[in-house]
């Protein structure tokens, strides 16, 4: 069953035509990887799925995006609800100027949880899943802005999973991480995919192979090819895809 469908999605920033007719389907409870050269529109596509681009003043969209068959751009839909369901880890880590604990607790609190014990436990659990607990357990009250780049990135992952979204969008979640943290995040993704639908942008082909079932290859705002990951990396249909994954591109 498909969780998300996009139909002939066109995105413009002002006069720039960024996404040029994206039609694709993201199946439920799997990991889908988006790959493609820098600037091809992966982040833009991801940010269209939880309506994050609405914040950009000159953003314009045509076409449809469906979540469980409902148009997410319908005026009747509550955007906050959508974003609660569709969580996101951003490309640049963006912790709040709050303590480490408060960063992770934030999502829980805004969704109405006020049981302190529950929150504390959930925060710990999320930080452990994001492989950050050991490094921060004795400084949970420190500001999150004093963390290293990779630590901030893991914090943002913890913050997102703490609220149990149903779909998780990850924009290069491991780009600032060392191999060990990366492995831990990949393990986490494996664990999550049983219940969640995950879309991950990555520049690391190995990572795509390791974690995802499906892969879409983006180029210049279009999807060149979508397929099972093991297919796409072994016998790509398109020449361009092959060029890209073998590094012959450009």
């Amino acid at each position: 069953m498909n969780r998300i469908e996009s139909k002939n999605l066109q995105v413009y920033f002002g006069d720039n035509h960024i996404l040029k007719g994206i039609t694709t389907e993201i199946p439920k409870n799997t990991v889908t990887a988006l790959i493609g050269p820098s600037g091809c529109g992966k982040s833009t596509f991801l940010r269209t799925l939880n309506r994050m681009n609405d914040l950009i003043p000159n953003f314009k969209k045509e076409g449809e995006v469906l979540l469980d068959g409902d148009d997410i751009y319908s005026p009747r839909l509550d955007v906050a609800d959508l974003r609660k369901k569709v969580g996101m880890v951003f490309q640049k880590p963006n912790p709040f100027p709050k303590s480490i604990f408060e960063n992770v607790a934030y999502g829980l609190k805004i969704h109405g949880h006020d049981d302190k014990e529950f929150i504390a436990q959930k925060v710990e659990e999320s930080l452990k899943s994001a492989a950050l607990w050991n490094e921060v357990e004795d400084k949970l009250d420190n500001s999150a802005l004093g963390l290293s780049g990779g630590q901030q990135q893991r914090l943002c992952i913890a913050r997102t999973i703490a609220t149990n979204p149903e779909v998780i969008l990850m924009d290069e979640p491991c780009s600032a991480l060392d191999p060990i943290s990366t492995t831990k995040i990949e393990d986490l993704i494996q664990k999550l995919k049983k219940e969640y639908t995950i879309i991950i942008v990555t520049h690391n082909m190995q990572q795509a192979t390791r974690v995802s079932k499906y892969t879409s290859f983006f180029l210049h705002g279009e999807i060149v090819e979508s397929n099972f990951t093991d297919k796409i990396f072994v016998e790509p249909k398109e020449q361009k895809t092959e060029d890209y994954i073998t590094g012959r591109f450009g």
Partner: protein
Amino acid sequence: MGFSKIIPPKIAQKIMNGVFIASGIVTLLILVLILGYILVKGLPAFNLEFIFGNPIDSGKEGGIFPMIVSSLYVTLIAGLIATPFGVGAGVYMVEYANNNRIVRLIRFGAETLASIPSIVFGLFGLAFFVVFLHLGWSILSGGLVLAIMALPTIFQVSEVTISSIPNSYREGSLGLGATKWQTIYKVVLPAAIPGIVTGVILGMTRAISEAAAVMFSVGASIQTPISIFDPGRPLPLHLYMLATEGISLEKAFGTAAVLVILVLIITIVTNLVVDRYQRKIMGK
């Protein structure tokens, strides 16, 4: 970047360092001069009776306790009214307003409000609050006039501060499913607090030091006001009368010194609190 062409950057840096430090020192000198002048002239009048006593003989003798109470009273009312309106308007302008024309109109309105002479506020307060709304000469009328005067400062400073909060914070919060208001309330405003407080302090200090605007609205009673419908006489008004009618220049400067010390205490305490808060959230 023309500078670097004429003067080598390092020399420019040296010159500018000098200029910065000089301007800092000049400002400091002005401060010391004025504060010193007030304190030197005012401290002789200072004693416990002056602060806690009632004025005798129109203020020629005695103390200024009722005036201290009136001042704190009207300023508090002004702050309680102007802060939510000012900050609320700032939030609206940055986070909600999407009609450019309304935004510009509102901003223009606030700027005009900020430039209106206090005497006009005074007359307006008399005509509108005292007479038209039947609030009489009272702490409430005076507080309302001061609230209007403080409003534009609080509003504009809040707007500037809120708009300088990085978008990534908003995205982070919205991305977790927070509503717009939750995002504003829990992420944007806390990050903007230091700047907003500057605005509120500036607005309040303007209110607490205002004589002309309250002259026609708060009354001039030398009794200590109890309810908000009592008339009162804030410090600046008392000071104004003592000084301009030649009642007692010594007591006038004493009153000024009390006011300055009062404001100094308020700003230092607020700044300390904000500083601690900032260190807590920014971790620095």
